[in-house]
């Protein structure tokens, strides 16, 4: 009797997890399938759940009607550079906040948390003026700067969590052997933390790659546009061309999904450990 219940339970579990899998995969599947249909087939009924003929004309089209390669390059460049700067800055701050407790350190952590809760649009008018005064409007530097700013608090918190898991005795030993603290940090601690640091880097990269609103605010020149800004100008047109739209969406989504699939274990670990233990 009990055994039969167990079997029933297992079957139920498989069915439920299966339904959830379909629910999660189908939207992306549909976008990919749409992008691979010949342009006239997209708008003809009955809908084809598998294209009769696979065609890449939507992909060709998106590069023809827009400077898609420029947007791709800009997004890649800005996301990589900003993520790298974020790491340089937050390895230091995360380390210090993990190892030392001093007057104001608690308040500082709180100040970092709070930035995650405020609707940042409030500051947009001032930021726009600041960018304009610094001569950064329409320049990639504006986004590199602001993406760094946006990620520094969260990545500090995240890296602090990783540093806390590494015993301080390791760098103390290196310091007795004559390393400076900074030397110990970069030669001893950072190599051990590589999984955590990679997770933080990928997290930062994905956030930058996806960011839309600052990019709309600060960039209005074709040659500096990032992917999301370009997508935004596609959908604000009166009539959306879903053929090239689906191709553009797939191209925007693929890098982050692939990165996530490769590193999900580290990312999940990095994101959860703070919440579960704290």
């Amino acid at each position: 009797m009990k055994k039969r219940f167990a079997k029933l339970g297992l079957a139920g579990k498989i069915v439920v997890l299966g339904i959830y899998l379909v629910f999660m995969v189908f939207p992306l599947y549909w976008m990919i399938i749409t992008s691979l249909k010949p342009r006239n087939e997209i708008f003809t009924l009955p809908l084809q759940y598998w294209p009769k003929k696979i065609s890449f004309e939507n992909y060709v089209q998106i590069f023809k009607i827009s400077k898609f390669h420029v947007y791709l390059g800009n997004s890649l460049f800005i996301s990589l550079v900003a993520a790298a700067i974020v790491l340089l800055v937050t390895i230091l701050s995360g380390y210090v906040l993990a190892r030392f407790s001093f007057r104001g350190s608690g308040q500082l952590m709180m100040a970092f948390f709070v930035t995650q809760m405020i609707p940042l649009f409030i500051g947009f008018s001032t930021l726009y003026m600041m960018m304009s005064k610094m001569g950064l409007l329409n320049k990639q530097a504006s986004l590199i700067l602001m993406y760094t700013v946006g990620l520094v608090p969260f990545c500090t918190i995240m890296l602090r969590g990783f540093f806390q898991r590494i015993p301080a005795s390791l760098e103390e030993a290196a310091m007795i052997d004559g390393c400076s603290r900074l030397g110990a940090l970069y030669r001893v601690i950072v190599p051990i933390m590589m999984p955590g640091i990679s997770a933080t880097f990928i997290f930062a990269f994905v956030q930058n790659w996806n960011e839309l609103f600052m990019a709309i605010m600060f960039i209005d020149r074709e040659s500096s546009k990032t992917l999301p800004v370009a997508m935004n100008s596609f959908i604000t047109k009166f009539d959306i061309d879903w053929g090239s739209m689906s191709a553009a969406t797939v191209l925007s989504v693929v890098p982050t999904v692939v990165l996530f699939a490769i590193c999900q274990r580290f990312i999940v670990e990095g994101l959860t450990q703070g919440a579960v233990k704290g």
Partner: protein
Amino acid sequence: MKLFRLNRTQTFIFLCLLPTILLVFGFTYYPIVKGIDVAFRNYSLFNLSDVRYIGMDNFKTVTSSAQFGTILKNTALWVSISLVLQFVIGFGVALLMRRSFRGRGVYQGFVFYSWALSGFLIGIIWRWLFNGQIGVVNDLLLKMGLISERIGFLSDPKWAMFSVIVANVWYGVAFFAIMLLAALQSVPSELYEAAEIDGAGSFGQLRHVTIPYIMPTIISTTALRVIWIFNFPDLIYGMTNGGPAGSTHILTTYMLDKIVFSGDYGQASAIGIICIAILVLFTTFYLFATRAGKAGDF
């Protein structure tokens, strides 16, 4: 000698924190504080020569607009329904995935990837799925015989809010599933063994062992999530841009609308301050309620 060393350490701490502090305070807190000032000014992109103080006028204009009631209602629906469904489904999935099975890692990659997408792109993807003429959702519902004619999910104000919430649930389940799965795996197995010896069935174990043990995670993740969903205009922006006829605006998309389309930073900041007030009230109340609940338990 000792004093000297202490100073060196202090210098090290200071130098390490300096870039972070400059960035966060210079480019986050400073603009926000200035933005609060802007809320009390006549501050429009189209007329920057006249940025005089106008008292509470921006707040009055914003709150007395005919849409404002709908926007508040939408915000409440957006946050509460999304949160409840994301949590319930996420918790269920996490429970089913707790015990390791062959291919679990691969399965995770396929069901949790939505986390890596931007809200804006998810909005675009679902805008296509929910398309009123050739959308696949309509097609599937017709095939299953659940509807007899196509629904204008995004063009009919009756359906539009429902549709954006579905997309948001799709996006956010992964967050809860990931967090709760990690928490579930931290529950010591001895606790389950003990409960089993005491005769607890799987439901009893869930109620008396699992849920109490992961309660701190549940409380922190739901609180974070409420704030996060509240501040999440990206998806609606990509999917309906607040339409049709303003029927899917929430506070943050309304604010965005003021910035991007009307260029009225004064009113946008006023909405931002209303948002902050609501979030502060929520956080205070939530912390108070969960603490009170805990005190009652022990």
